[in-house]
């Protein structure tokens, strides 16, 4: 499948943030979106998944089959917030997102199925604490639970907004491994980041605050 963005422009509160960005990502490719604060990385990700309307241009998913026709249906969005409830325990939080999002097992050939909640927690190294309320966890642990959400239901496209914020070195490396596994299973990763992703083959889209320039990636 392909994620294609054409001539994309975005705005926040009427102010243009970026314009004329275009790229096409094939299955297995990753794209790191970099740039200084305020250059529109987060806005770009929100436009990509359809949470914000694009002021110009379009985003589409090609070859996603019946299950993944639009970017919104095909993507996991990991924003600044973890989308977890502090009053619920870790397992309840992940259980809910798994049931609500549906497991949507892979339609792409050789796709890995979604993990169970415990498997996903083991993948982020938190299998010892499924019974703790989410509110008791540290910042890094919360982020790792949010990352585990990407694993409990399958979506081919991951849109990640500073995914490694608050993670320690070991967790960053583990997360790089998860992204690599996702790409090699035919997934697509777009990550806005300040620190290196740890993916050697990732393309880079550099966004500038003053003069954004389009650049084909991958």
């Amino acid at each position, binding site marked *: 499948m392909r994620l294609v963005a054409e001539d994309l422009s975005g705005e*926040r*509160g009427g102010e243009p943030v970026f314009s004329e960005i275009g790229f096409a990502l094939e299955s297995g490719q990753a794209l790191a979106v970099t740039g200084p604060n305020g250059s529109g990385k987060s806005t770009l990700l*929100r436009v990509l*998944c*359809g*949470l*914000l309307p694009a002021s110009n241009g379009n985003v589409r998913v090609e070859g996603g089959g019946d299950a993944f*026709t*639009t970017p*919104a*249906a095909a*993507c996991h*969005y990991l*924003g*600044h*917030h*973890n*989308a*977890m*409830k*502090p*009053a*619920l325990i870790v397992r*309840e939080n992940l*259980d*809910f*997102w798994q*049931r*609500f*999002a*549906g497991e949507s097992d892979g339609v792409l050939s050789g796709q890995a199925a979604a993990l169970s909640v415990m498997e996903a927690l083991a993948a982020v190294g938190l299998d010892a604490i499924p019974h703790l309320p989410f509110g008791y966890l540290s910042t890094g642990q919360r982020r790792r639970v949010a990352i585990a959400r990407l694993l409990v239901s399958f979506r081919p496209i991951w849109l990640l907004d500073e995914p490694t914020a608050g993670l320690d070195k070991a967790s960053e490396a583990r997360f790089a491994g998860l992204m690599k596994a996702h790409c090699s299973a035919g997934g697509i990763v777009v990550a806005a980041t300040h620190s290196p992703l740890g993916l050697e083959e990732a393309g880079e889209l550099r966004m500038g605050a003053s003069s954004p320039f389009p650049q084909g990636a991958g």
Partner: protein
Amino acid sequence: MLALFRRDLRLGFRAGGGALTGVIFFLAVIVTIPFGVGPDLNLLARIGPAILWIGALLASLLGLDRLFQADREDGSLDLLVLESDRHMLALTVLVKCLAHWTATALPLVIAAPLLGLFMNMTPAGIGATALTLLVGTPAIAFIGAAGAAVAVALPRGGLLISVLVLPLTIPVLIFGVLASYGAVNDPDPFLQPFLILAALTLFLAVIGPVAAAVALKHGAD
């Protein structure tokens, strides 16, 4: 969808959920009235259904601002909106409303008969008022969802939601109180206003979530 209902219900009853805030407010309003009105038992019995309804209405407006705001603050709302291809957003809102109603308004309905005793109401009046509250309060939650969705981005939107929603809930209040009186005062009808109340709830069960879904979809930033 069942998962969403169960999650919201759990959140409502756990610490900080605010399910009991409404009941305590309701209790405070109703218990204060007899002291203010004085020991005229006939007068209390006469205004009882109206007071119960007004108390329940205000109490159910109390928790509305958290309906979407809590989800917005922790990022859940983005994901709920993103899933709208799989779960129609209006349906998601409807389920959230039902969970909200079960956690905040159902306790009011259960508490209403007890509080009716403070108002010296007859058993028939208490039963009728509880029944009309049971049928009418979901309408307040549905219409409140639309107000909550409009004000979701505002940091202190609670008062604004109440001001937005209160005029729209007046028909519900009128027919709820009318039906309650109909059960007690002989020539007045009970069934007709009660059926209109039920119709209002069903009508708003469609309009409210659809309006809220549109507001949420276009309110993302």
